[in-house]
Each structure stands twice: as structure tokens, then as C-alpha cells.
């Protein structure tokens, strides 16, 4: 500990010299990997978003820290037309952009910056579209291209989005990382200087932290943006110290080399909780791990068979054995942290007797043989799919159902299961925008059967029409009612066995104050402070 104190003293001296302020506080975050880059439009990894959109940029609307609630960001207010097709945003006045060695902004945020940020992704003819490759995966993945008809500049501080069809989750999409707002003036200046690649390498945003320097696989360094529109961050410096191994991150946290670490090994959590210097925060993640029945194949066309197999699975045992307790049993297709979660639905109990009876009623008194696909990789919603499959296999054997476990390499697994080659498949989902639509429509809607993401290939009109109605209205109460009803149908028809929502653990040192777990799995340091 003495070493730590002297190191801190040295750091403070350095801070004094560099910043000339009384006490410079540096928060060190032991991040899990290098970002792919610093323009969140181009990438999809959470690691990249932590290092870019969560620090350097803002969006028109934001998710309130620690929740999935949408709050004003760069747009102070907005109006949505009656028909749900026109969204008009009124921007905050006087929002300053960052500056760096080669760029000093001459103006504050305007509608032009907003239009630039979206047109670059939307329009292949846009001069900036091809600067760093031309793939805008998240923008495309959320179908923004076909959703946005056009964007209009109303005046300096007003911008209007016109949609091709009403889509209530649009507002939530605008709070996502790819919708970060960048400086058009910076893009123009870099192009004029003949260094267009600088646009994405040396990003200029309006966010709470300014990127100071980056060493691949080693460190990212930020400074608090003193002119941040919402007031400067409580810490002066933010360092991402890249530490890919979870055991090493833990060792560094213990040694005081970092203040916050993500993704601990579940096995280390009890020891962390016992450490007097460490506080372990926890929250259910915005995810669901599930088993999908291929409802286009016999015998899974019969809901009774699906329910029988559901009743035979011992979820509690799975959560103990596979998640080591770090998960809650899933009942609905959406996690409880999302609005409209239906708390009235009770899970089917683990009841092999009832399962056998139901199976007999459906015409399979002696069971049948089937296959059970298990992913080859660890995912947040399923840390050990193969072992999970073995438990389910044993559970089903009890009721006479013989399942052969099948696995493929990850890319192959995704492609084949999207084609519906499986009988039953283990998979899961992590939410993008906190909207129930992002789980239910994407994973269980009729359109998603052809798209491949509906692994149960379950297209059920009464369910689907509720989801479609919920897309058309922007009234939150009405949407909540529709989704609650949809969950009842889902429960009755059981196209899936929802298995678990994994719990996210976030060990932080005690001096870290006001850290909140982001339900989207991001890591946000604006609003966090360090005790003396």
C-alpha cells in the first residue's frame, strides 16, 4: 500500500505540473480490449462504444444513466407529428465542440452537424461516406436507411427527420451509439488539409471527455472537457488501461492499479465481495438466453409438445451450474429492466410428471428423438452453452425425449440456425436500445422468420399484429399494454424456453463514487467521482 501512496503522490505532483490545478484526479478503468476505432458509426463492439460514443460524443437524445429511459441530449425538446412520421428536434444553443492540435472549432453545434452525422451513414453519395470504409453496420442493422426518408434543416438549431413509415422505437434508436453527433466543421477542415483519415482517427465531439492520446492495446487517455454543456466531469483525467485477462484485471484492482474493472470471472466474485477495499455492484443485464423450438418442424408445431419440453427443464439447476448463480430465471422474452415487462406471468414449474402427461396427450407417450444445438462460444447470456445443453439433454431424457447435441463453429452456427436447420437451438440476445420491440419484433416477429433472427420460425398472427400496432403508436401507455398482452400470448404458445437473464457484476474500488451500471452493458464515467 505504501507503494501505492507514493505512486499517487507522484501522480498528484505530475498533475500539478501539467494542469496547474490544486488536485488532479485520475480515474483508471481497466478495460477489456482495444477499441476498433473512435468513430462509433463504423463499429459494433461495446468496447469501441465505451471508448468513443460514451466519452467523446453525445446524441440528440440520451439514455438516462443507469436506466433505459430516454432523456434530452443535444436536443432540448422534440415534437412528433400525429401520424408518427415527422420528428422535429430543437437543439441546445451554444454547445461547444472539442478542439485538438490540428483543429480549433469556430462555431458551436448546429443542425448542419446533425445532418452531416446522419447523411454520412445514410447516403452513399455523401462525400464523407467512404472515408474509412463504407460499412455502417449498426445503422444498417437497425434498418435506419429504409426508415429515414429524408432529413431537413429547418433553421440553425432545428432539424427535422421525416420517416417512410411510423416506427415508435425510432427515438430510442437515436439514443444509440451509432447516432452520435460529430462536427461537420472538423470533417471539412481535415478534408481541406488533405488529411481526411484524421476525421475518424482524431475525433471531435461534444462529449464530456476529450481524447488526448491512444496507444493500441495499451492505453487510452482522456481529459475532462472543461466547457462541456452539462458541466465538466468530476474527474480530471480518465485512463482506459487495456487489460484483456479477467484474472489480471482483478489482480490490478486489488493492487490499486485501477479503480473499476468490467467482466470479472464469475468464480472470483465471492472473493471480491469479501474484499474490504472493493464494492461489487450488480444488475440484471439487458439480455436473454433462450432455447428456441423450430416451430416449422414436427413435432414442435404442436404447442403442447413445446410446453412439455419446457416443463421438463430444470431452470434453477441450470442457473446454479452454468451461471454459478449469476443470473435470474427468465420468464418472458424481455428482461425485467425493460418497460412493459409483464410481472403477472408466472413461470411454468419444473414438473417432469406433468411434462410426460402432456407429451402423451400430444401423441408422444414414448417420447421422440430430436436435436439440440449448442453454441461453441461464451456469450453474456450463456457462459457455457455446451454444458447447458447437457443438462437439458438429461432433463429431456427423463421424459423419454432423446436429444442429440449438435454444435458448429460460431459463424456456421449462426448461418445454419438462421436457415432453420435445427430442431431446437440455444441462443440469446443483448438489447440495443431498451425498447421491447428490439427483443420481440426482432426475435419473434413474422418478418424475422425470413430475416433469420426468429430462430423459432414462429409466425403467429395474433402476436404479430400486437407488435405491429405497438410500432405505430408513440403513446407509451398504449405500447406498454400491447407488449404486456403479447407476452401473455408468448407464454401460452411457448415458442421458446426463456432460460436466464445474466447478472452483470461490476467490481469497483471503494473510493469510486456514483458509478452506475449501464443496463446496455456500456461503461460510463461522466457523473462518477473519486473520494479523497
Amino acid at each position, binding site marked *: *500500500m505504501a*507503494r*501505492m501512496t507514493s*505512486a499517487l503522490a*507522484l*501522480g498528484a505532483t*505530475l498533475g500539478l505540473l501539467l494542469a496547474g490545478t490544486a488536485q488532479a484526479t*485520475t480515474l*483508471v478503468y481497466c478495460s477489456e*480490449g*482495444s477499441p*476498433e*476505432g473512435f468513430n462509433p458509426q*463504423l463499429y*459494433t463492439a461495446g468496447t469501441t462504444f465505451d471508448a468513443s460514443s460514451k466519452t467523446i460524443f453525445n446524441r440528440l437524445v440520451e439514455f438516462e444513466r443507469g436506466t433505459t429511459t430516454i432523456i434530452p441530449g443535444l436536443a432540448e425538446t422534440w415534437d412528433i407529428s400525429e401520424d408518427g412520421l415527422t420528428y422535429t428536434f430543437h437543439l441546445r444553443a451554444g454547445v461547444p465542440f472539442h478542439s485538438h492540435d490540428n483543429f480549433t472549432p469556430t462555431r458551436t453545434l448546429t443542425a448542419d452537424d446533425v445532418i452531416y452525422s446522419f447523411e454520412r451513414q445514410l447516403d452513399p453519395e455523401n462525400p464523407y461516406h467512404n472515408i*474509412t*470504409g*463504407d*460499412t455502417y*453496420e449498426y445503422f*444498417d*442493422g437497425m434498418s435506419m436507411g429504409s426508415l429515414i426518408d429524408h432529413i431537413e434543416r429547418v433553421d440553425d438549431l432545428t432539424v427535422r427527420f421525416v420517416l417512410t413509415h411510423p416506427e415508435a422505437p425510432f427515438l430510442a434508436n437515436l439514443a444509440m451509439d451509432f447516432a452520435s453527433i460529430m462536427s461537420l466543421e472538423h470533417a471539412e477542415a481535415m478534408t481541406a488539409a488533405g488529411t481526411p483519415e484524421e476525421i475518424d482517427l482524431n475525433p471531435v465531439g461534444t462529449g464530456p471527455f476529450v481524447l488526448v*492520446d491512444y*496507444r*493500441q*492495446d*495499451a*492505453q487510452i*487517455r482522456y481529459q475532462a472537457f472543461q466547457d462541456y454543456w452539462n458541466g465538466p466531469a468530476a474527474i480530471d483525467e480518465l*485512463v482506459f*488501461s*487495456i*487489460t*484483456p*485477462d479477467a*484474472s*489480471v484485471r482483478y*489482480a*490490478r484492482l*486489488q*493492487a490499486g*492499479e*485501477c479503480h473499476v474493472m468490467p467482466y470479472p470471472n464469475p468464480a472470483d466474485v465471492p472473493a471480491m465481495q469479501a474484499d474490504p477495499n472493493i464494492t461489487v455492484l450488480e444488475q440484471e443485464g439487458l439480455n436473454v438466453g433462450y432455447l428456441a423450438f423450430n416451430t416449422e418442424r414436427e413435432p414442435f408445431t404442436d404447442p403442447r409438445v413445446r410446453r412439455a419440453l419446457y416443463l421438463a427443464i430444470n431452470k434453477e439447476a441450470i442457473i446454479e451450474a452454468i451461471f454459478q448463480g449469476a443470473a435470474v430465471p427468465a420468464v418472458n422474452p424481455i428482461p425485467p429492466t425493460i418497460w412493459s415487462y409483464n410481472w403477472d406471468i408466472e413461470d411454468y414449474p419444473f414438473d417432469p410428471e406433468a411434462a410426460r402427461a402432456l407429451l402423451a396427450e400430444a401423441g408422444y407417450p414414448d417420447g421422440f428423438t430430436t436435436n439440440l444445438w449448442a453454441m461453441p462460444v461464451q*456469450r453474456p447470456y450463456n457462459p457455457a452453452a455446451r454444458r447447458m445443453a447437457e443438462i437439458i439433454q438429461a432433463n429431456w431424457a427423463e421424459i423419454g425425449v432423446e436429444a442429440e447435441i449438435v454444435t*458448429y*463453429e*460460431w*459463424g*456456421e452456427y*449462426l*448461418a445454419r440456425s*438462421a436457415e432453420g436447420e435445427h430442431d431446437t437451438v440455444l*441462443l*440469446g*440476445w443483448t438489447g440495443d436500445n431498451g425498447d421491447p420491440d428490439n427483443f420481440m419484433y426482432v426475435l419473434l416477429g413474422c418478418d424475422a422468420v425470413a*430475416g*433469420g*433472427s426468429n430462430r423459432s420460425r414462429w409466425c403467429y398472427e395474433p402476436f404479430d399484429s400486437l407488435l405491429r400496432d405497438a410500432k405505430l403508436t408513440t403513446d407509451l401507455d398504449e405500447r406498454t399494454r400491447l407488449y404486456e398482452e403479447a407476452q401473455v400470448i408468448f407464454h401460452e404458445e411457448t415458442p421458446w424456453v426463456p432460460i436466464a437473464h445474466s447478472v452483470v457484476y461490476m467490481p469497483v474500488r471503494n473510493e469510486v463514487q456514483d458509478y452506475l451500471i449501464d443496463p446496455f452493458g456500456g461503461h460510463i464515467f461522466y457523473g462518477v467521482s473519486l473520494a479523497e
Partner: protein
Amino acid sequence: MLRFILTRVTLVIPTFIGITLLAFALIRLVPGDPIEIRAGERGIDPVRHAQMMQEYGLDRPLLEQYADYIWDVLNGDFGASITTHQPVLREFFALFPATLELSICAMIFALAIGLPAGVLAATRRGTAVDYGVMGVSLTGYSMPIFWWGILLILLFSVHLGLTPVSQRISDLYWVDPVTGFMLIDTLLGDQEGAFLSALHHLVLPSIVLGTIPLAVIARMTRSSMLEVMGEDYIRTARAKGLGPGRTIWLHALRNALIPVITVVGLQVGVLLTGAILTETIFSWPGVGKWLVDAIGRRDYPRLQGGIMLIATAVILVNLTVDILYGIINPRIRHAR
């Protein structure tokens, strides 16, 4: 002599072609392409998928891709990483000094301990010292790097607080890369304590990475020494009345070193592969970790470029060693 060097150099060409072919083919044998992997469970529209494969030039026949790739490489263009969109060559040379610095320190550590230990074991053959050295080196040789690294971190960094857990330098310092070698860059900069911090951070990873070469060097030195010690000229030296110190360290060791040099040369390859694990454990920002990431992402340009560049480094070292002892030992030169 020139002819000897020419033969050696010519032999490098087929090796190099073999490596490029392997690097190219092996990655593509792994199922899943970079586009699919990146999309994950979100999935990607098949039309868009095909379009992106075309953009990356991955839809063309393999032979055509290979020929183009080799042509580009010969022109010094290793392509851009699919992950970061940055040129592979630039990324490689930004990270390689870190790997090299670590490897050099590990080798210094291995030699500094391995050589004397081997000599000691040879001169005290059959004693407790000999068995001790051989036992420890066998253990060292069989040590899984990953486990050994974590073990040392837990003991020295977490429990005793003597060494830092990971990274190249404390997060308090920010050193501008001039040469990329932290020890040199910290000396060039003027931040007080930075050099010591960098040195401090090198201790554990060098030990972990140097353990296997150390074991190999110790064993090799011992057996080579034993052989030399039985030679006539050693007996003559002794008969002349030369002291044991001079006999061993000057006459015997010098001649025993030739096979040891070979082993050291071969260990460079071992070091670079070992660096992949060591770098992951110690969050060392070198090419090892960079390559491992590329496998998971099927980042073909980064992976094949990285393999090729590292292989080139190993080939060059081995070539140098070959030529070196062609020079040192004329018998080798004439035997071919």
C-alpha cells in the same frame, strides 16, 4: 564463404513461400468469415453480406486472392486490418518494439541465469547442485506459461506488492513513442521515475517469458560442457597446471557455446510464440495479443500479415545464426 551465404539465403525463399501459403490457407480453412463473425447473433442480410465480401475482395477465387496478396506484399502493401481499417504494416511496427523489448529482456534473463547454472551443473556433475539445476530446469520447461504468469502475479504483485501487475509502464506516465522501446523512450523523455517504472514493469513478464529458454539453455550448456570437459585439450590444459576457473570459463565454455548459440537462435521462435501468451497475461501491447485478437475476428489481412512478418523475423534470426557460425566454425561451412 560467399557461396555458403548464398546457399543459405536461397534456401530462405522456399521457406518463405511455404509460410505465405500456410498463413493464407490456414486462416481461410477456419469456417466463418469476418463479416459473419462481426454481425454475431444480430445476423446480416445475405445480399449485404455478399456485397461486403466483394468490397473486401473475399469473394474471388482463392488462388487469385493469393496471387494479388503476394504481389501487394512484394510492393510493401500488407493491406488494411478489417477490424480497425488501419494499414497492417503500420500497426505491426507500432507494436513490434514492445514484443522485441520483452523478448530481448527475457533472453538476457535466460542467458544470465541459464549459462552459469548449466556450467555449475556440469562441473558438479552428480551432486545435489546438478540434480537441483536439472530438476528446476525440467520444471521450468514444463511450466504452462499462463499458469506460471498468474502465479507470479498473485505472489509478487498482489500479496507482496513488489511488482506491478501488468502493462509496460505505470498509468501515471505518458511516454511519447520515439523508438517504441520503452526503456529508451523513457530515457529520451524527461519524466522523473519513468525509466525505473518501465524497468520495474519488465521484471515479471521477462521472467515468465524467459523461463522456458532458461531451462533449455541450462540443459544444453550442461550437456555441451560435459562433452567438452572430456576432450583431450582440457586434460592438457589441466596438465599444464591451469587453474580450474580458467579451464572451465575460458577454454571449456568457449567451445561448449557453439551448440548453445544454435539453441538460442531457435529459442527466438519460441520467444515470439511465448510472447503471445505472456502478452495476454501482462496486457503487454505487442504483436502477440494483436494476432490473437485477429484470429477471433477472422481479420485475414492482419493475421496473414502478422504471421508473415513474425516468420520473416524468425527466418532472419536463424539465417544470421547459420551464417554466424559458418564464420565461427569453418567445419560447418565446408561440410555443405
